[in-house]
């Protein structure tokens, strides 16, 4: 059995004199365009959903939502002002007092089951809408976002009449109205992560979707009405930063739940300082994906690729730092580069696209700035040789090598398809480097040795540890971070506790 420090013995190469063998990933068999043709049934403008009704914003103001794949306007979105936020909270409070908090858990559960089934029915339509609004590949919206959102409702539906098992030996009650602010990377899925547990526990909700991705949240109003959910239980109000701040600060919000950047999370904490309001935060990350020399190599490469390029890297738990054991670092990076050559970047609506558009111009600028810093600070850079569409916001999969913890690209969250590669020699060093960050959301470990997996899981300061896999999610599996990645959990038994008060 090889030790950590020696190179694995490989048979000597017998190659033809001249160039070393390489594989050709060329254009011998080009895929024709394969656009998804399902109708997203979009409206030209979307209004707010308050008290069971679709209502125009009091101010009459709208803003535009851009399709990042082609920079064209997709729809106009209502801009909720102070009055609208207030109306939403009042509707939610009324629904809580009169209907929802008195309803037996089993009945609440049945509403959530209906919502899950209706989302399943209209899965393709919503997936296309999600892709157009946010830029993620249709393949992912179709195969991940939508099924997972439906599963989240289905899972939490079942808890509604079983809460005593999740919160044993305690008297508890729902909190009341919950204010929820969600990000743009998984718009509908984040909505499900927020609304499902809140409702299962007997709360009512005022939810603000992200400004660049409001379409599926406002379409969700249809589903809520078709399910017959009592008016006011779910309210969806769109807007930008100011609207979000109003939701967070509203006096009727018994609790605030936020998913987004650590920067904004800190602002929210400041806004709520001294208010006594309950808060959960799911913030950023800079996860280490740690590969030991005995890892199943090919699957580790795939896991690293998934870890950083899934959803264009717009993932808080993305494996943005590869920590690879020195003895295999060169061959591993070579394999990584080879795999990247087969990733397809392009039109999100094409079913063969692996990596779609960057969500917004602002995000693209941020990625460019940080990537430039990596170049300026002397890290080696490799980028995919793919071509990018001429319009739209796109960025090539990028790998930095020779990165150390002192590089900005190793410490700051890039939130794009950019991987930083660092090396380590021993397990202790891997743990040190992995934990050397203010974040603590997730981590990956690749090794064939079971006891090492468990040891790493024990030592890593992260809320989610993936061993020999990455970016796996399930409604029954609690998700959330340590340190500046936030507090509170979503999913599983542990996630329910954040939506009740103990008495």
């Amino acid at each position, binding site marked *: 059995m090889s030790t950590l420090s020696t190179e694995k013995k490989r048979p000597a190469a*017998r190659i033809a004199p001249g160039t070393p063998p390489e594989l050709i990933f060329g*254009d011998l*068999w080009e*895929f*024709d365009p*394969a656009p998804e043709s399902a109708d997203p049934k979009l409206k030209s403008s979307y209004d707010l959903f308050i008290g069971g009704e679709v209502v125009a914003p009091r101010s009459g103001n709208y803003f535009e939502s851009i399709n990042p794949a082609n920079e064209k306007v997709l729809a106009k979105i209502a801009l909720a002002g102070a009055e609208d936020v207030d109306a939403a909270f009042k509707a939610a409070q009324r629904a809580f007092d009169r209907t929802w908090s008195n309803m037996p858990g089993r009945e609440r559960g049945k509403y959530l089951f209906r919502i899950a089934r209706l989302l399943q029915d209209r899965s393709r339509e919503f997936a296309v809408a999600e892709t157009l609004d946010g830029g993620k590949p249709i393949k992912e919206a179709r195969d991940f976002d939508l099924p997972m959102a439906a599963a989240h409702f289905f899972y939490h539906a079942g808890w509604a009449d079983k809460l005593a098992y999740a919160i044993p030996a305690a008297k508890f009650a729902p909190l009341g109205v919950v204010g929820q602010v969600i990000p743009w990377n998984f718009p509908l899925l984040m909505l499900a992560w927020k609304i499902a547990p809140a409702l299962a526990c007997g709360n009512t909700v005022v939810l603000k979707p992200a400004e660049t991705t409001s379409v599926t949240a406002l379409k969700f109003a249809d589903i809520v009405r078709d399910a017959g959910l009592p008016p006011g239980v779910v309210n969806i109000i769109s807007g930008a930063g100011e609207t979000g701040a109003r939701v967070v600060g509203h006096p009727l919000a018994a609790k605030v739940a936020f998913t987004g950047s650590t920067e904004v999370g800190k602002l929210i904490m400041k806004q709520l300082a001294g208010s006594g309001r309950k808060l959960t935060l799911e913030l950023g990350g800079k996860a280490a994906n740690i590969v030991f020399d005995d890892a199943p*190599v090919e*699957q580790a490469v*795939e896991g690293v690729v998934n870890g950083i390029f899934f959803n264009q890297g717009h993932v808080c738990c993305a494996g943005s730092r590869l920590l690879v054991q020195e003895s295999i670092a060169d061959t591993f990076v070579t394999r990584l580069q080879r795999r990247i050559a087969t990733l397809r970047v392009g039109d999100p609506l094409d079913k063969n696209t692996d990596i779609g558009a960057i969500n917004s111009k602002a995000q693209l600028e941020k990625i460019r700035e940080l990537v430039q810093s990596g170049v300026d600070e002397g890290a080696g850079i490799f980028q995919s040789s793919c071509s990018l569409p001429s319009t739209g916001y796109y960025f090539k999969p990028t790998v930095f090598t020779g990165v150390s913890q002192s590089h900005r690209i190793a410490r700051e969250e890039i939130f794009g398809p950019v991987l930083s590669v660092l090396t380590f020699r021993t397990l202790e060093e891997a743990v040190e480097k992995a934990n050397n960050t203010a974040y603590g959301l997730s981590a990956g470990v690749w090794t064939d040795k079971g006891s090492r997996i468990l040891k790493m899981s024990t030592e890593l300061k992260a809320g989610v540890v993936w061993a020999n896999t990455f970016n796996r999610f399930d409604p029954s599996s609690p998700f959330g971070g340590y340190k500046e990645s936030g507090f509170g959990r979503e999913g599983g038994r542990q996630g329910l506790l954040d939506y009740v008060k103990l008495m």
Partner: protein
Amino acid sequence: MKHRAGTGTILNFPGATNFQRTADALELDCDILVPAALEDQIMAGNAPRIRAKIIAEAANGPVTPDGEKILLAGGNRRDSRCEFLSIERYYFPMPVSTRGSFHRLFDDIGTVDYVGVEERVAKYGTRSIKKGSKIWGLKTAVTMVDLTTLEGKDTPGRVASLCRKAIRPDDDPDIPPVGAVCVYPSMVKHARRALGPGAPVRIASVATAFPSGQAPLSTRLAEVNAAVADGADEIDMVINRGAFLAGDFACVQEEISAVVEACGGAALKVILEVSELETYDNIRAASMLALRVLRPGDFIKTSTGKTSGNATLGNQQVMLEAIRDHYLDTGIAVGMKPAGGIRTAKQALSFLIAVKETLGDAWLTNRRYRFGASGLLNDLLRQLRKEKTGAYQAPYNFSEAAASY
């Protein structure tokens, strides 16, 4: 030889010079040097001192890559470079010390995570192949079919009609012939007669007591010899699964080498029988054992088609990755043949996508990829005709179709 038989040694042969150190013999000033025994004899260390003008390699790997570089660059001769004559571009098989240890074998070649592989191959199923790229894929798949009949009740007549279909699968002249026909050894001569000389379709014969392989090595090799003599261009052999699972890797490999030799100019396809190996670790291990004794143009193959477990995207992926790793290490390109269970054009396209994304363009040819199938051919033709006419096709409109309704 007589001298050795008489004296028990090759030393002191009349007229010859004895050398204390064998390696010194390599540095003689001569025209032709024939290293004919061990590998790694001429290395960076002694390459500058080699004075021969022509090195005729009669062993496996007597010159290391570093040594080769130095020799080609002229060593320390300022006047000329040396020539290489190589008999085989062979890699030396696994050392016998790995006998009996899966642990050590896996340590050398790496392990495979089953769930990870399944996740990877699930992505192939999401590729959407349309229009021109679909037609290209379907036609290419036709050229890759090893049209197979392996039944106890096969007759010369059956084989003859199979060969007709192989040469001209469809009335549409744009549709190419298949890659090969695949038959039992006793049917090879009938196939040869049916195909005639210069046929675009090769003849593959199963051999080595297919499908179980449970017969003495001598009879297995005799089958190979007979099939080749009757005109087989390719041999599909089965590995010794019992020996593999018992840890006797040297036996598995030696038998493959013996079959390689018996094949002569015929290409060899080595069937691993993945359903009996069961785990992906085992499939990778068996692949590597075979790859290390195969020649460019040979293949490794998933299954006999005679058990309930056949080719899947998962077991193919493990084998494709082994082929790739071996190629990148040695430059030797071995082909892949999934067999059994691939009945529809849709499946075939998924298998080809896996090849495209794992091995790249150079393997998208029937010189390096085949489908072991029978019913698949007509489904490919159905899809091609649908692309041409726009209408979904009935199976009975195609020659040699089995379905009546």
